[in-house]
């Protein structure tokens, strides 16, 4: 179990770093979605299915969607 947790922790950290370093908001929305997925897996590994479900719905789906909408909107206004 610990090995799975360790691997997902490292993956999550990498994914989070990529989110921050990604330049454009649209690319960030996609990487944030990936980051949300790795976190979901990590939370499942940490025996927290309730939290994993929230994380999946929110940071893997809803928040990236809103970010995409806002980024598109701002691009359209330019």
């Amino acid at each position, binding site marked *: *179990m610990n090995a799975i*947790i360790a691997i997902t*922790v490292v993956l999550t950290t990498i994914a989070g770093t990529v989110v921050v370093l990604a330049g454009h908001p649209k690319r960030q929305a996609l990487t*944030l979605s990936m980051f949300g997925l790795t976190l979901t897996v990590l939370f499942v590994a*940490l025996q*927290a299915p309730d939290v994993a479900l929230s994380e999946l719905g929110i940071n893997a789906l809803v928040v990236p969607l*809103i*970010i995409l909408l806002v980024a598109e909107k*701002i691009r359209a206004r330019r």
Partner: protein
Amino acid sequence: MRILLFCCAGWLLLIGCYGMVTSRNIIHTVISLVVCQSSTYLILLGIGYRSGATAPVYSDTTPSKVVDPVVQALCLTDIVVSATIIALFLALALQTHKRHGTIDPDELTALRG
């Protein structure tokens, strides 16, 4: 394992802050804030973990070893609620773009001095 998990959480917190400090785009700032926030869940759930235990849900009434349910309760509401706060910030970013014509923090100059 302890050091790995928590130091990774600390790294996420600081890299999120780095993102906010160097950001050239308010949306990017807000997303970096989301990364910072994720580190808090990592820390809380790491603290509540118990080796060899299952999730705190009982399929029948015989109690077995389960992980700490309290930290999970704290996290799961916070995740959902924070998403709406993030939405609030993004709404602010949208209006900022409408009024200022830019969302680059370096070019937002309404509050100097």
